[in-house]
Protein backbone atom coordinates (compact mmCIF):
# COMPACT_ATOMS: atom_id res chain seq x y z
CA UNK A 1 0.00 0.00 0.00
CA UNK A 2 0.94 3.65 -0.26
CA UNK A 3 2.10 4.96 3.10
CA UNK A 4 1.74 8.58 4.14
CA UNK A 5 1.73 10.76 7.23
CA UNK A 6 -0.08 13.95 8.01
CA UNK A 7 1.38 17.42 7.93
CA UNK A 8 1.42 19.41 11.17
CA UNK A 9 -1.58 21.52 12.18
CA UNK A 10 0.36 24.83 11.81
CA UNK A 11 1.46 23.74 8.31
CA UNK A 12 -2.11 22.82 7.36
CA UNK A 13 -3.44 26.15 8.65
CA UNK A 14 -0.79 27.96 6.61
CA UNK A 15 -1.80 26.00 3.48
CA UNK A 16 -5.50 26.92 3.76
CA UNK A 17 -5.03 30.43 5.18
CA UNK A 18 -6.61 32.19 2.21
CA UNK A 19 -9.88 30.24 2.38
CA UNK A 20 -12.93 30.54 4.61
CA UNK A 21 -14.63 27.23 3.81
CA UNK A 22 -12.63 24.09 3.22
CA UNK A 23 -13.43 20.45 2.67
CA UNK A 24 -11.14 17.96 4.42
CA UNK A 25 -11.42 15.00 2.10
CA UNK A 26 -10.31 11.57 3.27
CA UNK A 27 -9.65 8.44 1.26
CA UNK A 28 -10.86 4.99 2.26
CA UNK A 29 -8.03 3.01 0.71
CA UNK A 30 -4.25 2.96 1.43
CA UNK A 31 -4.14 6.01 3.69
CA UNK A 32 -6.94 4.59 5.82
CA UNK A 33 -4.92 1.43 6.41
CA UNK A 34 -1.78 3.40 7.32
CA UNK A 35 -3.85 5.54 9.71
CA UNK A 36 -3.10 8.82 7.95
CA UNK A 37 -6.12 9.91 5.94
CA UNK A 38 -9.14 7.72 6.59
CA UNK A 39 -12.48 8.66 8.10
CA UNK A 40 -11.17 8.61 11.67
CA UNK A 41 -8.10 10.72 10.92
CA UNK A 42 -10.14 13.18 8.86
CA UNK A 43 -12.54 13.60 11.77
CA UNK A 44 -9.67 14.23 14.20
CA UNK A 45 -7.87 16.66 11.90
CA UNK A 46 -11.05 18.53 10.99
CA UNK A 47 -11.72 19.04 14.72
CA UNK A 48 -8.11 20.08 15.27
CA UNK A 49 -8.26 22.59 12.42
CA UNK A 50 -11.54 24.08 13.63
CA UNK A 51 -10.09 24.48 17.12
CA UNK A 52 -6.75 25.87 15.93
CA UNK A 53 -8.59 28.39 13.73
CA UNK A 54 -10.78 29.47 16.64
CA UNK A 55 -7.76 29.96 18.88
CA UNK A 56 -6.12 32.17 16.29
CA UNK A 57 -9.42 33.95 15.54
CA UNK A 58 -9.23 32.83 11.92
CA UNK A 59 -12.69 32.51 10.31
CA UNK A 60 -12.59 28.98 8.93
CA UNK A 61 -15.39 26.52 8.28
CA UNK A 62 -14.26 22.93 7.95
CA UNK A 63 -16.42 20.25 6.40
CA UNK A 64 -15.31 16.64 6.41
CA UNK A 65 -15.96 13.77 4.03
CA UNK A 66 -14.25 10.49 3.25
CA UNK A 67 -14.78 8.72 -0.05
CA UNK A 68 -13.84 5.17 -0.95
CA UNK A 69 -10.97 6.05 -3.27
CA UNK A 70 -9.62 9.42 -4.39
CA UNK A 71 -7.51 8.08 -7.25
CA UNK A 72 -10.52 6.78 -9.16
CA UNK A 73 -12.95 8.93 -11.13
CA UNK A 74 -15.91 6.71 -10.28
CA UNK A 75 -15.50 7.39 -6.56
CA UNK A 76 -14.44 11.03 -6.91
CA UNK A 77 -17.94 11.79 -8.17
CA UNK A 78 -19.25 11.19 -4.64
CA UNK A 79 -17.39 14.28 -3.45
CA UNK A 80 -18.76 16.61 -6.15
CA UNK A 81 -21.43 18.38 -4.09
CA UNK A 82 -19.21 18.84 -1.05
CA UNK A 83 -16.41 20.21 -3.22
CA UNK A 84 -18.85 22.56 -4.92
CA UNK A 85 -20.01 24.17 -1.66
CA UNK A 86 -16.48 24.76 -0.33
CA UNK A 87 -13.76 27.20 -1.37
CA UNK A 88 -10.95 24.66 -1.40
CA UNK A 89 -10.16 21.00 -0.80
CA UNK A 90 -7.60 19.74 1.69
CA UNK A 91 -7.09 16.23 0.45
CA UNK A 92 -6.01 13.49 2.80
CA UNK A 93 -5.38 11.10 -0.07
CA UNK A 94 -1.94 10.14 -1.32
CA UNK A 95 -0.22 12.31 -3.94
CA UNK A 96 -2.11 10.46 -6.69
CA UNK A 97 -5.44 11.13 -4.98
CA UNK A 98 -4.71 14.83 -4.54
CA UNK A 99 -3.87 15.17 -8.24
CA UNK A 100 -6.87 13.15 -9.36
CA UNK A 101 -9.16 15.50 -7.43
CA UNK A 102 -7.33 18.57 -8.78
CA UNK A 103 -7.61 17.31 -12.37
CA UNK A 104 -11.31 16.59 -12.02
CA UNK A 105 -12.32 19.81 -10.24
CA UNK A 106 -10.21 22.35 -12.06
CA UNK A 107 -11.87 25.47 -10.64
CA UNK A 108 -11.11 24.58 -7.00
CA UNK A 109 -7.76 24.80 -5.28
CA UNK A 110 -6.79 21.32 -4.04
CA UNK A 111 -4.08 20.97 -1.41
CA UNK A 112 -2.26 17.99 0.08
CA UNK A 113 -2.83 17.37 3.77
CA UNK A 114 -0.48 14.41 3.84
CA UNK A 115 3.14 13.80 2.98
CA UNK A 116 3.10 10.68 0.81
CA UNK A 117 6.12 8.65 1.82
CA UNK A 118 6.47 5.26 0.11
CA UNK A 119 5.02 1.93 -0.97
CA UNK A 120 5.29 -0.35 2.01
CA UNK A 121 3.67 -2.65 4.51
CA UNK A 122 2.72 -2.68 8.15
CA UNK A 123 5.70 -4.44 9.74
CA UNK A 124 4.39 -4.36 13.28
CA UNK A 125 1.67 -2.37 15.00
CA UNK A 126 2.36 1.30 14.37
CA UNK A 127 5.42 0.63 12.20
CA UNK A 128 5.37 0.85 8.41
CA UNK A 129 8.38 0.04 6.27
CA UNK A 130 9.18 0.74 2.63
CA UNK A 131 9.30 -2.37 0.47
CA UNK A 132 8.98 -1.24 -3.13
CA UNK A 133 10.59 1.63 -5.04
CA UNK A 134 8.28 1.17 -8.07
CA UNK A 135 11.42 1.00 -10.22
CA UNK A 136 9.59 -0.36 -13.25
CA UNK A 137 11.45 -3.66 -13.61
CA UNK A 138 10.85 -6.05 -10.76
CA UNK A 139 13.85 -8.19 -9.82
CA UNK A 140 12.39 -9.81 -6.73
CA UNK A 141 12.50 -13.28 -8.31
CA UNK A 142 16.31 -13.09 -8.37
CA UNK A 143 16.71 -12.13 -4.74
CA UNK A 144 14.47 -14.46 -2.79
CA UNK A 145 11.65 -11.95 -2.63
CA UNK A 146 13.73 -9.24 -0.90
CA UNK A 147 14.25 -6.09 -2.91
CA UNK A 148 17.83 -4.76 -2.99
CA UNK A 149 16.71 -1.69 -4.97
CA UNK A 150 14.51 -0.56 -2.08
CA UNK A 151 16.02 -2.11 0.99
CA UNK A 152 19.78 -1.83 0.35
CA UNK A 153 20.86 1.73 1.13
CA UNK A 154 23.25 1.55 -1.83
CA UNK A 155 20.66 -0.08 -4.12
CA UNK A 156 23.24 -2.73 -4.99
CA UNK A 157 22.23 -5.45 -7.42
CA UNK A 158 25.48 -7.34 -6.81
CA UNK A 159 25.96 -7.24 -3.07
CA UNK A 160 26.71 -7.20 -0.30
CA UNK A 161 28.99 -4.23 0.09
CA UNK A 162 32.03 -4.66 2.31
CA UNK A 163 30.79 -2.49 5.13
CA UNK A 164 27.81 -4.26 6.64
CA UNK A 165 28.39 -5.28 10.27
CA UNK A 166 26.90 -8.62 11.27
CA UNK A 167 23.40 -8.22 9.88
CA UNK A 168 23.29 -4.43 10.15
CA UNK A 169 23.52 -1.80 7.42
CA UNK A 170 26.50 0.55 7.70
CA UNK A 171 24.44 3.51 6.53
CA UNK A 172 21.99 3.05 9.40
CA UNK A 173 22.72 0.33 11.95
CA UNK A 174 19.07 0.39 13.00
CA UNK A 175 18.29 -1.27 9.67
CA UNK A 176 18.97 -4.84 8.72
CA UNK A 177 21.39 -5.38 5.84
CA UNK A 178 19.19 -6.28 2.86
CA UNK A 179 21.92 -8.48 1.49
CA UNK A 180 22.16 -10.49 4.68
CA UNK A 181 18.41 -11.05 4.42
CA UNK A 182 18.74 -12.01 0.75
CA UNK A 183 21.50 -14.52 1.56
CA UNK A 184 19.49 -16.10 4.37
CA UNK A 185 16.34 -16.34 2.28
CA UNK A 186 18.08 -17.77 -0.80
CA UNK A 187 19.79 -20.34 1.41
CA UNK A 188 16.46 -21.29 2.94
CA UNK A 189 14.84 -21.89 -0.44
CA UNK A 190 17.88 -23.63 -1.93
CA UNK A 191 18.71 -20.93 -4.46
CA UNK A 192 22.10 -19.71 -3.26
CA UNK A 193 23.52 -20.29 -6.74
CA UNK A 194 21.63 -17.17 -7.85
CA UNK A 195 24.26 -15.11 -6.02
CA UNK A 196 26.91 -16.38 -8.45
CA UNK A 197 25.17 -14.65 -11.37
CA UNK A 198 26.55 -11.17 -12.04
CA UNK A 199 23.58 -8.88 -12.59
CA UNK A 200 23.96 -6.23 -15.31
CA UNK A 201 23.09 -2.60 -14.51
CA UNK A 202 19.41 -1.92 -14.28
CA UNK A 203 17.53 -0.05 -16.99
CA UNK A 204 16.90 3.12 -15.04
CA UNK A 205 14.93 4.72 -17.86
CA UNK A 206 12.00 2.54 -16.83
CA UNK A 207 12.08 4.11 -13.39
CA UNK A 208 11.27 7.65 -12.39
CA UNK A 209 14.55 9.04 -13.75
CA UNK A 210 12.92 9.43 -17.15
CA UNK A 211 9.96 11.49 -15.98
CA UNK A 212 6.50 10.25 -15.08
CA UNK A 213 5.40 6.93 -16.44
CA UNK A 214 2.25 5.64 -18.06
CA UNK A 215 1.01 2.14 -18.82
CA UNK A 216 -1.28 1.67 -21.81
CA UNK A 217 -3.41 -1.43 -22.21
CA UNK A 218 -4.77 -1.33 -25.76
CA UNK A 219 -7.08 -4.26 -25.02
CA UNK A 220 -8.91 -2.14 -22.46
CA UNK A 221 -9.05 1.13 -24.36
CA UNK A 222 -12.26 2.35 -25.93
Amino acid sequence: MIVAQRKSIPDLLEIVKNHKKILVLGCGTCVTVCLAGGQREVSIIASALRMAAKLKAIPLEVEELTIERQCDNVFIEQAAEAIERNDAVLSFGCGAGVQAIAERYTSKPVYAGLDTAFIGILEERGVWAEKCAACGVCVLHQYGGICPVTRCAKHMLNGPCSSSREDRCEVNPARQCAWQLIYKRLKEIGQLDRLKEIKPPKNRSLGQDDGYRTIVREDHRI
Partner: protein
Amino acid sequence: MKAFENGADGVLVAGCLEGGCRFVEGNLCAKRRVNYTKDLLEEIGMEKERLRMVNVSAAMARPLADIIIDMVETVRKLGPSPIKLNSSSRQENRK
Protein backbone atom coordinates in the same frame (compact mmCIF):
# COMPACT_ATOMS: atom_id res chain seq x y z
CA MET B 1 -11.29 16.00 20.36
CA LYS B 2 -15.04 16.46 19.94
CA ALA B 3 -15.39 17.21 23.67
CA PHE B 4 -12.73 19.92 23.43
CA GLU B 5 -14.23 21.25 20.23
CA ASN B 6 -17.57 21.53 22.00
CA GLY B 7 -15.97 23.64 24.72
CA ALA B 8 -14.92 21.16 27.43
CA ASP B 9 -12.43 22.74 29.83
CA GLY B 10 -10.79 19.41 30.49
CA VAL B 11 -11.23 15.73 29.73
CA LEU B 12 -10.39 12.90 32.11
CA VAL B 13 -10.23 9.46 30.51
CA ALA B 14 -10.57 6.64 33.04
CA GLY B 15 -9.52 3.12 32.09
CA CYS B 16 -9.18 -0.11 34.04
CA LEU B 17 -5.95 -0.92 35.82
CA GLU B 18 -3.14 -1.95 33.53
CA GLY B 19 -3.34 -5.69 33.03
CA GLY B 20 -6.96 -5.74 34.13
CA CYS B 21 -8.69 -4.65 30.93
CA ARG B 22 -11.57 -6.75 29.64
CA PHE B 23 -10.26 -5.96 26.17
CA VAL B 24 -6.79 -7.28 27.14
CA GLU B 25 -4.70 -4.31 26.01
CA GLY B 26 -7.49 -1.87 25.18
CA ASN B 27 -6.56 0.46 28.03
CA LEU B 28 -2.89 0.45 26.95
CA CYS B 29 -3.92 1.39 23.40
CA ALA B 30 -6.18 4.09 24.84
CA LYS B 31 -3.27 5.49 26.84
CA ARG B 32 -1.11 5.78 23.73
CA ARG B 33 -3.93 7.49 21.84
CA VAL B 34 -4.54 9.89 24.70
CA ASN B 35 -0.83 10.76 24.56
CA TYR B 36 -1.12 11.34 20.81
CA THR B 37 -4.14 13.58 21.39
CA LYS B 38 -2.21 15.54 24.04
CA ASP B 39 0.50 16.25 21.44
CA LEU B 40 -2.20 17.26 18.98
CA LEU B 41 -3.68 19.69 21.53
CA GLU B 42 -0.24 21.22 21.96
CA GLU B 43 0.08 21.56 18.16
CA ILE B 44 -3.23 23.39 18.12
CA GLY B 45 -2.09 25.71 20.89
CA MET B 46 -4.00 24.31 23.88
CA GLU B 47 -2.51 23.17 27.19
CA LYS B 48 -2.09 19.41 27.10
CA GLU B 49 -2.74 19.25 30.87
CA ARG B 50 -6.41 19.66 30.02
CA LEU B 51 -6.41 16.00 28.98
CA ARG B 52 -5.43 13.21 31.33
CA MET B 53 -5.78 9.44 31.41
CA VAL B 54 -5.89 7.46 34.64
CA ASN B 55 -6.15 3.77 35.43
CA VAL B 56 -8.48 2.83 38.26
CA SER B 57 -10.58 -0.18 39.22
CA ALA B 58 -14.20 -0.29 40.32
CA ALA B 59 -13.00 -0.79 43.90
CA MET B 60 -11.01 2.45 43.97
CA ALA B 61 -13.71 4.98 44.72
CA ARG B 62 -11.60 7.15 47.06
CA PRO B 63 -8.52 7.32 44.81
CA LEU B 64 -10.77 8.11 41.84
CA ALA B 65 -12.46 10.89 43.79
CA ASP B 66 -9.01 12.32 44.65
CA ILE B 67 -7.95 12.09 40.98
CA ILE B 68 -11.10 13.92 39.90
CA ILE B 69 -10.57 16.62 42.53
CA ASP B 70 -6.96 17.04 41.36
CA MET B 71 -8.05 17.21 37.71
CA VAL B 72 -10.70 19.81 38.52
CA GLU B 73 -8.05 21.82 40.37
CA THR B 74 -5.65 21.58 37.40
CA VAL B 75 -8.33 22.74 34.98
CA ARG B 76 -9.46 25.51 37.34
CA LYS B 77 -5.90 26.86 37.39
CA LEU B 78 -5.74 26.74 33.58
CA GLY B 79 -9.04 28.60 33.35
CA PRO B 80 -11.94 28.11 30.92
CA SER B 81 -11.30 26.49 27.56
CA PRO B 82 -9.91 29.05 25.09
CA ILE B 83 -12.11 27.40 22.46
CA LYS B 84 -15.22 28.23 24.48
CA LEU B 85 -13.97 31.74 25.18
CA ASN B 86 -13.24 32.42 21.50
CA SER B 87 -16.63 31.03 20.45
CA SER B 88 -18.56 33.14 22.94
CA SER B 89 -16.59 36.32 22.13
CA ARG B 90 -17.34 35.75 18.45
CA GLN B 91 -21.03 35.32 19.23
CA GLU B 92 -20.91 38.55 21.24
CA ASN B 93 -19.35 40.32 18.25
CA ARG B 94 -22.11 39.03 15.99
CA LYS B 95 -24.74 40.47 18.34
